[in-house]
């Protein structure tokens, strides 16, 4: 083959190979919009894709800004002064310390390698011990210096943080200014990502009750852009070798509301590796750059994706409040029998007969957990009965806040029963915050004091079994009540009576027969009926080929 032919073949190969691989379907019908459920620092891009994108097809988004954004990051004279002062102060304070630290580090490292060597060389124990002492001394010197520097740097950070990080702000301004000076450079907003990974608009029912599939845009790709990446240019001003501060490598800065951004999309196809030049080939290659237009992110006062949440929360609250109000007019509401609560009197009575105390646990959660509050409510009622029966009541607690409230509630229970003198504050005590130490100590009390009745109310974790089994082994009557679904089976097996889930919450209404609590319970029943109606309706709609998905969309949280 002649020289010319060989050259021609090479050129043909070079031309054909990469170009063929770059072909990427172009986005069509691009729409830019504000994202309806954010603070105004994101914009959305949606587009149709001609054909389905392959794994290898990638895209990235860049944006261009005007000087509005530059102004946003501009430091005022005063801020600039603060930053400069703080930097000067820090380099003055820290300068010598930095040197000392690096020499201390060198000494420490040397001491460590000496120590290691002595161990390898099997030197006598006393010599190794001496070297170890030296190492610890050096280590302490280094740690002390390191801490001093860290403390100074923390002071610097506190000085330069005025609602936002001034150092970061200055850096961002510098970067944006640089980009603008160079004729409005494009700034990376979203790193290269495979197109196939982008979600479709159909997967995001952003509007309450509106099914995107019905709007015929289920196949539209949907992407949000919320930050620009600011790399550290590493110029003199941001060089912090004199302060020893950590340097930013690259920081994402959120988009700023009410400022216009110009957007561009770049698409990349994968080039096959070039057999003629293996070093250059392979990987994504730029195929096309498409201008998308301009868009302005806006802050929103209401997160539209939470509409269904608001509707359901309000609906259920209204129903419950309405029935509480109704119950005031008609206080004699019916409540079904709850077996576990019928046994309360029996359990306390037995304790009195045997002359043994009653133990009551309010669970292992804090007071902010609603099941703890339910347990506290029941405790108030049970305490009254115990006072009537003249038994002792022991309440160990895991949370001091719960303990104080439990004391108040029991005291009041005793007072209402007309026996305030029988109340013993010391019997309602704090044990410990640790789950298993609490369990061990409570089991210890069970084994030694042998309470005749044990109440396990509130929220429990794995220790439920230890508590209930120890209680069962001492022969106590046990009444449990929890909404911790994983622990319920253990209580069912080991306790005499168990309040399952909602029964725990219903218990205070059951024991007190207070009209407002009964009304609330009735309201819950109506809300349950409403949920059952929704489930039934969607089943019927599905059978008759109706728009059953409407309900699913309605109750699916975003």
């Amino acid at each position, binding site marked *: 083959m002649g020289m010319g032919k060989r050259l021609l073949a090479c050129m043909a190969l070079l031309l054909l190979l990469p170009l063929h691989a770059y072909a990427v379907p172009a986005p069509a019908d691009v729409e830019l919009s504000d994202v309806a459920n954010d603070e105004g620092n994101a914009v959305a891009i949606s587009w149709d894709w001609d054909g389905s994108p392959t794994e290898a097809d990638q895209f990235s988004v860049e944006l261009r800004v005007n000087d509005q954004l530059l102004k946003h990051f501009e430091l005022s004279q005063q801020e600039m002064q603060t930053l400069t002062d703080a930097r000067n102060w820090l380099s003055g304070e820290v300068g010598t310390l930095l040197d000392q630290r690096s020499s201390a580090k060198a000494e420490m490292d040397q001491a460590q390698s000496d120590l290691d060597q002595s*161990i390898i060389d099997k030197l006598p124990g006393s010599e190794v011990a001496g070297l170890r002492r030296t190492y610890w001394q050096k280590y302490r010197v280094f740690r002390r210096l390191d801490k001093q520097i860290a403390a100074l740097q*923390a002071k610097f950070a*506190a000085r330069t943080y005025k609602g936002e990080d001034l150092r970061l702000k200055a850096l961002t301004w510098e970067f944006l200014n640089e980009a603008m000076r160079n004729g409005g450079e494009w700034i990376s907003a979203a790193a290269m990502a495979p197109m196939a990974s982008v979600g479709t608009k159909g997967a995001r029912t952003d509007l309450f009750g509106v099914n995107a599939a019905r709007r015929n845009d289920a196949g539209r790709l949907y992407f949000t852009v919320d930050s620009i990446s600011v790399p550290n240019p590493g110029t003199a001003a941001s060089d912090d070798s004199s302060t020893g501060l950590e340097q930013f490598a690259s920081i994402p800065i959120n988009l700023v509301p009410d400022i216009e951004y110009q957007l561009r999309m770049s698409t990349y196809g994968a080039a096959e590796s070039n057999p003629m030049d293996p070093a250059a080939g392979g990987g994504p290659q730029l195929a096309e750059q498409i201008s998308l237009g301009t868009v302005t992110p806006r802050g929103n006062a209401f997160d539209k994706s*939470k509409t*269904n*949440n*608001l509707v*359901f*929360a309000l609906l259920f*609250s209204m129903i419950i409040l309405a029935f509480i109000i109704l119950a005031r007019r008609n206080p004699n*509401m*019916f*409540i*079904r029998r709850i077996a576990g609560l019928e046994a309360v009197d029996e359990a306390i009575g037995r304790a009195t007969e045997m002359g043994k105390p009653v133990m009551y646990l309010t669970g292992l959660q804090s*007071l*902010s957990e*609603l099941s703890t*509050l339910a347990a506290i409510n029941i405790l108030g009622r049970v305490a009254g009965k115990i006072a009537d029966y003249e038994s002792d009541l022991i309440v160990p607690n895991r949370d001091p*806040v719960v303990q*104080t*409230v439990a*004391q*108040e509630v029991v005291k009041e229970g005793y007072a209402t029963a007309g026996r305030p003198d029988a109340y013993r504050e010391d019997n309602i005590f704090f*044990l*410990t*915050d*640790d789950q298993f*130490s609490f369990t*061990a*100590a409570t*089991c*210890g009390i069970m*084994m*030694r004091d042998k309470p005749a009745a044990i109440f396990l109310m509130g929220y429990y974790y794995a220790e439920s079994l230890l508590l209930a089994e120890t209680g069962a082994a001492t022969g106590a009557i046990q009444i449990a009540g929890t909404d911790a*679904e*994983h622990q*319920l*089976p*253990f209580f*069912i*097996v080991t306790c005499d009576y168990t309040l*399952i*889930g*909602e*029964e725990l919450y219903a218990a205070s*209404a059951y024991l007190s027969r207070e009209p407002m609590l009964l009304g609330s*319970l009735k309201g819950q*029943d109506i809300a*349950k009926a409403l*949920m*059952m109606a*929704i*489930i039934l309706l*969607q*089943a019927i709609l*599905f059978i008759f080929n109706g728009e059953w998905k409407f309900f*699913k969309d309605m*109750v*699916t*949280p975003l």
Partner: protein
Amino acid sequence: MIPVGEVIGTWIAVGLTLMMFSFIYKDNPAFKFGEHLYLGISVGYYVNIQYWSTIYPLVFQQMQQNHNYWVLIPTLLGIFILLRIIPSLSWLSRMSFALYIGGFAGYSLPLIVHSLLLPQLSQTLQPYGGGVGPVINQIIILLAVFSTLIYFFFSLEHRKTVGVISRVGIVFIMVSFGASFGYTVMARISLLIGRFQFIIDSFRGQ
């Protein structure tokens, strides 16, 4: 070479492990000692954690370094809780409890709807399709959810039809508990094996 502290520590740890294990046999002085030691250590740990990870950084450091004096409000409310000890001033703690519990009620209400209630409801709304088996399962699920919910109706007397349905509900609840129970039993056994491994390894000096 293993540091001395670690050797002593490991022996103490093994001793304490055996003391706590003796609880399985019956209540005995060794367990009592371990239990009381554990109690003291854990309360000390808890107080240190509260101080070094909450009070120190969020109150003292905030005031000293950031000159943020807003933290005095929660500090005052925290002191109000302590006033429960003094009966004539104990009413002040109501302010703290009102903010703590009232705020948490409002905080958790939309979260319960979002991450607990709606997902459970949404998962129940599935299409009835995909062959005979899945449809039967779907109907069983519907039946189970309905009957369980009926069981928890408190304002209806459980007699006649309601009584029958709630009996079905309790059947489903019990089968469900049985399944959870069996599942957990197997998982817990492996924990025990891990603890024995620790003792055996320590004796072999590993």
